């Protein structure tokens, strides 16, 4: 049952889906489970809605866009557990769950994640088949309809940063884009969880220009990394993705921002390369604890005026 679920180990796709059903069954007041579509290989794309009823403002969090970044899905599960366990005990979290809805997608790239558990631990992309090519998969963070397939993306199907045959070619990307477009008036923050580099990134990725609401976003990022640091003293760099990490086109944060979501962030969680994608399970707890503080800081900022 949910109470025995171990949040400090990595779980297979099947275990995570069972966990989502269990949360839906045992937490009817705070959790609602629904599917926004099917993946390329036909798996459901589940989203958990977390919060007290249908609030007017919402936050979207997706994890597992890149299959090998296992700490992402671990964080999404951890955040849901923390939110439920601290509701009515932690005033900040109670306020957030009473005034905001959180849409949490624990595994965005379900096909790739399943493949990384069963075949290739370092698989990154989706598992779509490109006609005429033996290579499979598209980089789900290069497939969004924003400056698609420009700098920092590849048009070759065998490359890890392959942008796909056309924008939103991936059913997973199309389903999330459709949901975000439909709810863009309510969704005030888009957060995508990746690894590794210990960074908090915001638009733009595809160009060096400054976003119009730079001061508000910069201030939110600054308070988020301070909150993160307060847990265990781990420093995260933060700034526009193009200058802080590298230029990349077709990314989800640029698409979310250009589609009207004023706060769009990508977290690159621990570490900076000592373990890389093989972050040990012993580091799940500190990594998720510090990141929860950062996400709470961002969400709290949405309830204030900037």
């Amino acid at each position, binding site marked *: 049952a949910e109470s025995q679920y171990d949040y400090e180990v990595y779980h297979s796709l099947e275990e995570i889906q069972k966990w989502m059903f269990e949360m839906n069954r045992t937490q009817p007041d705070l959790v609602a489970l629904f599917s926004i579509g099917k993946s390329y290989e036909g798996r459901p794309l589940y989203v958990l809605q977390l919060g007290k009823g249908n609030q007017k403002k919402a936050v979207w969090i997706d994890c597992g866009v890149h299959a090998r970044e296992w700490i992402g899905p671990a964080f999404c599960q951890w955040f849901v557990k923390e939110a439920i366990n601290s509701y009515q005990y932690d005033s900040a979290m109670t306020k957030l769950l009473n005034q905001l809805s959180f849409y949490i997608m624990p595994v965005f790239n379900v096909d790739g994640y399943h493949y990384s558990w069963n*075949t290739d631990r*370092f698989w990154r992309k989706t598992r779509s088949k490109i006609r005429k090519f033996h290579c499979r998969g598209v*980089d789900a963070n290069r497939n969004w309809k924003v400056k698609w397939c420009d700098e920092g993306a590849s048009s070759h199907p065998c490359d*890890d940063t392959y942008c796909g045959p056309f924008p939103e070619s991936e059913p997973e990307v199309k389903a999330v884009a459709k949901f975000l477009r439909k709810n863009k008036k309510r969704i005030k923050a888009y957060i995508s969880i990746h690894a590794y*580099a210990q960074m908090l990134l915001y638009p733009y990725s595809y160009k060096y220009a400054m976003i119009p609401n730079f001061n508000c976003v910069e201030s939110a990022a600054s308070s988020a990394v301070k909150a993160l640091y307060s847990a265990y003293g781990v420093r995260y760099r933060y700034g526009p993705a193009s200058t802080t990490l590298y230029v990349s086109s077709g990314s989800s944060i640029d698409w979310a921002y250009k589609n009207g979501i004023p706060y769009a962030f990508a977290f690159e969680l621990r570490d900076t*390369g000592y*373990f890389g994608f*093989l972050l*040990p*399970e012993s580091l799940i707890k500190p990594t998720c604890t510090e990141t929860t503080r950062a996400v709470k800081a961002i969400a709290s900022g949405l309830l204030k005026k900037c």
Partner: protein
Amino acid sequence: FLYNNRYVGDQVLRIIPTNEQEVQALKGILGLMKVDFWQPNSASLIHQNRSVDVHVKNHDIRGMHERLTDEKIQYQVLISNLQKEIEKQTGHRFSRKRR
């Protein structure tokens, strides 16, 4: 073994090109060998003084070390045996399940 032991002897190297010449030499080396880019995600994103983390298959390890040494490009071994690290990361549960 997990993943049919396919990562035995594979290594993850951290390579830091310190000037444009080394960047070009590194792109040349990595263009010849099929490596898995961990950071950044592709050769086109390699910049001087920024670390490059690559997963190298065991049969390419020796050649990679030789080429980097020939080009005097500084590097370090982040993970010396990927299979062992994978077994450590989640293997304990798999072995318990198997038992």
